[in-house]
């Protein structure tokens, strides 16, 4: 019993360390400029004079007390993040699921699994120049489809490996029985197997959405202005206006952080499989 309490205390300490930095940003988002740093006032954890103005500022571009009006509000980057993440997820999940099924059942495609793994391991910056040139040649820089496509490609390894681990577990007999009953091979896949793994597909999709939403580097390099995503917008806000728009940036950070936290916690069990490429199940 003392062991249990001792363990709980240690774990609670860890949880506090995990939580404090996030909550510092969260409270910062509600602080007026005077409370941002200790240069102008004593720092407190909770805002002494809580305000929505940081949010008002990023959503409307103007707020009392801010002489700088924003050229762009957060609405469009928010939409850009959402749209490109969702479409990127669709591409990755559809292609990845189909390929995973094919490889799981028929061992086609040679070493496609290895290639996909390499794709994930490779540092994007070492290959970004040709990708930029290619994207420009195809007119895909700073477009929603260009960003969605690259998102779909870089998260493809995850959807492939995840779904493959699921299909590997599913006995072939299910489809064979269906084919014996008169289904075509495709119908067996589409009508029999897919419905069985539909929750796995859904979890994979959420997982990949989080990955896409979290991207900073790719959006930084492959967008200009129109389709910059929230993280890029957030960081650019500081470069342009000064390193001191702490509150507005914190508000943006909070907006960017919330969807992955909610989705991530809701699929936490599944995350393990995603992050281990399904290697856990042995």
């Amino acid at each position, binding site marked *: 019993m003392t062991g249990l*309490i001792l*363990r709980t205390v*240690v*774990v*609670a300490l*860890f949880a506090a360390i*995990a939580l404090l*930095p*996030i909550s*510092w*940003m969260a409270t910062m988002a509600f602080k007026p400029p005077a409370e941002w740093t*200790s240069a102008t006032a004593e720092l407190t954890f909770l805002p002494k004079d809580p305000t929505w103005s940081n949010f008002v500022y990023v959503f409307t571009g103007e707020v009392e007390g801010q002489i700088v009006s924003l050229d762009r509000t957060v609405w469009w980057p928010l939409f850009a993040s959402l749209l490109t993440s969702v479409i990127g997820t669709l591409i990755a999940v559809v*292609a990845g699921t*189909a*390929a995973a099924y*094919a*490889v799981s*059942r*028929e061992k*086609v495609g040679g070493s496609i699994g*290895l*290639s*996909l*793994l*390499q794709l994930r*391991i*490779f*540092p*994007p*910056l*070492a290959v970004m*120049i*040709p990708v930029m*040139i290619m994207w420009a040649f195809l007119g895909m820089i700073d477009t929603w489809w260009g960003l969605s496509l690259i998102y779909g*490609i870089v998260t*493809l390894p995850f959807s492939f490996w995840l779904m493959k681990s699921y299909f*590997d577990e599913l006995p072939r007999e299910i489809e064979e029985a269906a*084919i*014996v009953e*008169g289904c075509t091979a495709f119908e067996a896949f589409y009508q029999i197997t897919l419905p069985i793994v539909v929750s796995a597909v859904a979890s994979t999709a959420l997982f990949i959405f989080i990955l896409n*939403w*979290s991207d900073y580097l790719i959006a930084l390099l492959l967008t200009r202005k129109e389709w910059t995503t929230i*993280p890029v917008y*957030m*960081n650019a806000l500081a470069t342009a206006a000064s390193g001191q728009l*702490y509150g507005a940036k*914190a508000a943006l*950070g909070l907006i960017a*952080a919330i969807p992955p936290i909610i*989705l*991530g*916690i809701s699929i936490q069990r599944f*995350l*393990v499989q995603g*992050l*281990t*490429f399904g*290697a*856990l199940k*042995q």
Partner: protein
Amino acid sequence: MSYTPHTGTADALAAQRRTLARRLILPTQILLVFIVAFPLLMQVYISLTWWTPLDGTLWYSAYESWNWFDNFAEIFRDPGLHGAVWRTILFVSIAVPIEFGLGLLLAALFYEGVLARPVFYSLILMPMMIVPAVAGYIFFLIFQQTGPLNALVGIVWDGAYQINWLNDVNRAFIAVIVADVWQWTPLMFLILFAGLMSVPHDQMRAATILGANWRQRFFRIALPRIKAVIFIAIGLRVIECFKIFDMLFVMTSGGPGVATESLSLYLYKQTFQSLEWSYVAAIGITVLVVLSVIAAIILTRTSRPSNTSEAS
């Protein structure tokens, strides 16, 4: 029984299934070829030249400054690159073991049982859900001269506020490690805990009955059993840590000086400041070769279990 498949013979059926499989894999193959073929060819091509966009010619005219393997030779002579690689390796070899150690400790605590486990579990996972660029910003805030950490330090050591974090070479390096450990220890914990939970309960109990104490059970039964999971967890972190960019870019941009400049940040600067694109291509190819070997190792490790399960 008396069912007869009306689709024909077993051979025809197998053929039909293979055809379907080939079609289903096609989109992925196309995407892969799309993203790999041209970039790879272009990388190889320009890496053998001295081309930079400043030449005023387009990349396909790069042959005008053909130089064979000079760029690859440069890789061995470039102290900037060596520094970045060395820092990255140092970063990985400090951050990942700490993450592993703390993750394992947490996993062990959870495995033994804590009160309100689901609540703490979710709380502890939160850092890894944060967008890395946002995490960089959070720690940029925390490590400010005028930020909360120094305020806290000021409370403990009265008046001694002025610890400079992000503008000091060594402390900035510590700060980015702290940020990385904060963000990714939860991942280690998540994977290791799942691994521990997959250790058959009976084996742990059998060890107990045979007289093993807690430590013996943990280190002789549980840990060896989750070797593959540990391998994955560490491998995953090493790879991601090696690529690290977002968090550093936002938090320090590699500064002060190059004190926190990782390989990725170095490549970014080479690409957008020095414009040494052919050199970047040569580095890219070198990295590709090294990583391919690593990927092959990982793949053989992880695919082995599924092969054996198919065999049985």
